[in-house]
């Protein structure tokens, strides 16, 4: 019991009295809205009291930082040991353009790198593929070969800076490039650190960057987890992501539940191979969440996520190593909460969202730039976004104490409620036979589509408000300068690629691709073959075409 009988009794009495007062007040002074709910449409009560925590047990449900159930964080010293990593997602144009932006960010105090690739790279197409028409270098950096990659990381100390790469279907290829580049630069694999997103289930559910069908996709991921555990121990071979699920219109609870159920699916697949025990790889699994605009809902979501994962790892998978029970995550503020109208308001939104991430105990954070809803971020906008994190860490005092909102009736109650709702989803998907089966049925996709449509309708009906969009809209605009990528970037990239195809040893390329094909067919780990292939200057698409050929191609089922 969280509160003594005496406290509960006193609380009940005072609450009853308060309720009577409320009824009286409402007679003359009604509420200004009919309904008070979170951005995800959870109903929120007018007041939370000790009664809302009747079934909470302090030691079991809340506990101490660095102890099961890790509700209050993984680290015993909280943010005093070190603050979260300031990790700004960036990438644009050519490898050289992006490298320049990275050096600028490091000079300005960024502490980790994060790569945005363009769509052809994300989808496993070379810049000269007809599918890449109009897309090269537009939403991120174009990388076709190891040579591009070396230009991207020029002068970046790979043994000191960790790099995250948002890459999914071709994750093996880009990671192979990173490993090959480290080797070329003389940094041993066991010293490089970073993350590949490499989470395909959320692609089928939400983001739609896919290449091969779900089952072989999960197989490739398990290959990377195995390879990492053996040779690249400081690397996070997967970042199990709720961010995109949320951006696609999911509620906070759906984001929480689907992401964790994805995590369960990956663990099950690796264990099915019977090559590793859960503690061999679980400490390297990492997560990635969204921080939306509803401050408390987001804080509670992140706290609940840690507690659910610890239970899953301990009770479902029997993990023993405390690090296997840790849920380590990166957070990005919500792109979908930003508005193209009155774009400077986005600075405010991002600040509140970043605060939610920090109060939720994130290990790493990207703050969106005010112009990201319009174009790639400008240098000035990125600087403000980075400064937002620095102000939070060094001026506001939110780092002074660990999990400062713990024990709040409201926060603990909402955390419990979100956890309970997430378990319902997890159990439902278990009953369907797991996430791959649920995806094939379209279940999470349709749940999200329903939530997205409901939200949009609420916006139209002004039941939910976006300032500057459906309320306080103004004619007068304060435009922001837009960053544009020249079409010449694409032309130059194609020229470079054509030139490389002429120069390289084509026999070595075909041989390494043949070896990779054999590995795909006989079930050997693809990573070593991938590394050889990129060293021989095979292009990203050439390698991905091998996967497509052996595993088949997944097409959007277009559920809506």
């Amino acid at each position, binding site marked *: 019991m969280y509160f003594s009988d005496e406290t509960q009794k006193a609380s009940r009495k005072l609450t009853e009295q308060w309720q009577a007062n409320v009824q009286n007040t409402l007679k003359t002074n009604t509420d200004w809205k009919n309904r008070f709910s979170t951005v995800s449409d959870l109903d929120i009560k007018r007041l939370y009291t000790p009664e809302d925590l009747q079934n909470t047990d302090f030691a079991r449900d809340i506990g101490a930082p660095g102890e099961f159930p890790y509700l209050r964080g993984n680290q015993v010293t909280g943010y005093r040991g070190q603050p979260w990593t300031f990790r700004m997602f960036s990438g644009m144009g050519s490898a050289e353009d992006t490298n320049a932006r990275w050096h600028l960010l490091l000079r300005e105090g960024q502490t980790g790198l994060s790569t945005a690739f363009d769509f052809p790279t994300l989808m496993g197409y070379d810049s000269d593929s007809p599918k890449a028409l109009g897309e090269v270098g537009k939403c991120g950096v174009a990388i076709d070969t190891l040579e591009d990659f070396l230009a991207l990381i020029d002068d970046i100390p790979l043994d000191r800076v960790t790099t995250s790469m948002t890459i999914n279907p071709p994750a093996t290829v880009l990671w192979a490039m990173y490993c090959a580049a480290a080797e070329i630069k003389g940094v041993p694999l066991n010293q490089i650190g970073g993350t590949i997103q490499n989470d395909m289930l959320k692609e089928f559910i939400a983001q739609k960057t896919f290449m091969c*069908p*779900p*089952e*072989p996709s999960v197989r490739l991921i398990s290959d990377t987890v195995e390879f990492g555990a053996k040779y690249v121990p400081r690397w996070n071979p997967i970042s199990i992501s709720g961010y995109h699920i949320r951006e696609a219109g999911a509620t906070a609870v759906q984001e929480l539940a689907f992401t964790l159920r994805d995590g369960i699916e990956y663990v099950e697949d690796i264990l099915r191979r019977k090559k590793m025990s859960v503690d061999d790889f679980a400490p390297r699994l990492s997560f990635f969440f969204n921080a939306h605009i509803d401050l408390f809902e987001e804080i509670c979501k992140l706290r609940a996520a840690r507690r659910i994962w610890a239970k899953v790892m301990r009770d479902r998978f029997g993990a023993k190593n405390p690090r296997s029970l840790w849920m380590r995550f990166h957070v990005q503020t919500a792109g979908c909460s930003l508005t193209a109208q009155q774009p400077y308001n986005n600075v405010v939104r991002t600040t509140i969202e970043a605060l939610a991430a920090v109060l939720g105990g994130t290990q790493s954070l990207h703050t969106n730039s005010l112009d990201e809803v319009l174009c790639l971020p400008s240098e000035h906008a990125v600087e403000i976004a980075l400064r937002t994190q620095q102000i939070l860490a060094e001026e506001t005092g939110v780092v002074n104490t660990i999990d400062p909102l713990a024990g709040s009736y409201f926060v603990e109650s909402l955390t419990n409620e979100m956890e309970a709702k997430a378990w319902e989803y997890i159990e439902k998907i278990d009953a369907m036979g797991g996430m791959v089966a649920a995806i094939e*049925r*379209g279940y999470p996709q349709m749940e999200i589509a329903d939530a997205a449509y409901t939200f949009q309708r609420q916006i139209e009906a002004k039941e939910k408000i976006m300032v500057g969009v459906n309320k306080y809209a103004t004619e007068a605009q304060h435009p922001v300068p837009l960053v544009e990528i020249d079409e010449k970037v694409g032309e130059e990239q194609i020229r470079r690629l054509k030139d490389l195809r002429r120069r390289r040893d084509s026999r070595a390329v075909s041989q390494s691709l043949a070896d990779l094909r054999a590995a795909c067919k006989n079930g050997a780990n693809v990573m070593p073959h991938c590394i050889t292939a990129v060293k021989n200057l095979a292009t990203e698409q050439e390698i991905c075409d091998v996967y497509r050929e052996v*595993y*088949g191609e*997944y*097409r*959007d*089922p*277009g*559920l*809506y």
Partner: protein
Amino acid sequence: MTQNTQKICAGDVRSASRLIRDLEDRRPEARLRLRQIFPHTGRSFIIGITGSPGAGKSTLTDALIGELRKQQKTVGVLAVDPSSPFSGGALLGDRVRMLRHAEDEGVFIRSLATRGALGGLARAAGDAIHVMEAMGKDVILVETVGIGQQELDIIHHAHSIIVVLVPGMGDEIQTMKAGVMEIADVFVINKADRPGARQLRTELASLLNVSPHGPQDWIPPIVSIGNLYEPENFAKKTAELMDAVAKHHAHLVVSGQLAERTERKAVMEITDALRACILEPVLERLIADGELKKIAKRIQSRETDPFTEAEAIARRFLKTGEPS
């Protein structure tokens, strides 16, 4: 031959798709066009594909298109989806699974919403099939959800009917009892890698064996198709399905049943046409001038009965062309 008929018979997509649209929208001039192309119809082989939602019909249709194209056959596809009873709108979602054939000039894919008004769906589907026949498509695939009466009517346009079942939906055997057994020429057990597939096959096979059949009768074969994402195996199985359909076609020809089926189709066509030129105009007029509601009121209060009213309307209409 009019210019429009010529264009359609030459396979012009633009004219054909426009005519289908006009027929769906019931433009009077479209009926005339349909009459003009009719002599050029009747030479396509028509395959119906039906089964419950989520059975994987569209994916299967997509695979069959691939098989048929390998045999150099031109293909028309008619994909039927339900209209929303609330808004009258429709989400036509089948085509998305066939988009790899979008640019293939030998393939014409058309989505059709049920619209639901006056039971005209079978006719709209029949009209669209006629246009595709006139275009010279060798094979026409008609895909439709579920086994309701409307769908059964559509499916009777087909020469061969594939019924798609999946294990684990819980209602397979119920569906079978509800009349699918009679219409199926080929059964597919789709997603056969799922638990329950073997049992479903056994149950289905035993049901087929107990149904009375003579030595010359066609016994619907069962093709089990596994995971779509094992490309080699999936391709092998869809080829097997195509083969089963071809065998059924041969059986229809040899046994003389093809003639029976084309006759069945012709009966349905004239029934639909009669409905279009008698029942629909009558109903439309009665609805438009509010007469139908008035009659209904009188029936409701038992001032009259529907039979007397109907006979009176029919007599009036046949005599004067006016229902009221």
